[in-house]
């Protein structure tokens, strides 16, 4: 269920840094934009990926269950390939939904990119 006809309310960009691929997400992750998030995330979970995928949610203003499901399925796929997931940021309500669905128990949730980089340092 993608909205083909309305202007995008969701932006995504990626970058490689030492030991990690970073995916920066901004805007609203809902049933209309979750498929794009999934496509981009799955694109990073490939054979020659660096060891960690950092998903930067600091500029995400809305997240619903369809977005959560994308995180879950991509996290599972990443784990199968021996990749680690780190989720960064999240506004109060985005954080709340992550806690309700207990995603915080399944993947590291940190508040800043600084913390994420520190984790990479430790791992790398």
């Amino acid at each position: 269920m993608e909205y083909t006809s309305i202007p995008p309310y969701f932006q995504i960009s990626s970058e490689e840094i030492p030991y990690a691929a970073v995916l920066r997400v901004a805007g609203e992750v809902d049933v209309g934009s979750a498929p794009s998030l999934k496509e981009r995330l799955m694109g990073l979970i490939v054979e020659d990926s660096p060891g960690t995928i950092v998903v930067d949610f600091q500029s995400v203003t809305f997240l619903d269950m369809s977005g959560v499901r994308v995180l879950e399925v991509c996290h599972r796929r990443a784990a199968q390939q021996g990749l680690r997931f780190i989720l960064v940021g999240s506004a109060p309500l985005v954080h709340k939904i992550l806690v309700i669905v207990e995603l915080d128990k399944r993947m590291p949730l940190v508040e800043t990119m600084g913390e994420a980089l520190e984790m990479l340092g430790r791992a790398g």
Partner: protein
Amino acid sequence: MRMAHVVKHHFETNAIAMRMVRKEAGAAARAVGATEYDAGRVELAVCEAIANAHVHAYDGDPGPIVLEITYEPGRFSVAVHDDGPRTGPPFEPKFPEPPDPKVGNGFGLQIIKRVMDYASLEHYGANGHGTTVRMGIWLK
């Protein structure tokens, strides 16, 4: 006399109408004094309730929803009525507790329950009478 101010929204479960209505619910909450965070809670709960109706009542097809917003001094409430499931077994009219992370079931309702100040569910069987989710927040 406590006046209730009601706006009823009639629409079909298609992606764009669902997006418009979610945003409308947040805007209505802000209009009567909800904070940004509280309006966000309303948007999220409305989003999940409509998504449930779309998926469980109408199998992902377009189907009719009535979403009723009520403002009364001190509280903002929302009722989401659907007319399904047209097929399929009736479900327990309660919020799954705890949800089942293995099958992934029960998180939609769980979110509604946890982000809103109150929420309840009524289900009228599988003979087309539908489901109603009622929920609300207290306004300071």
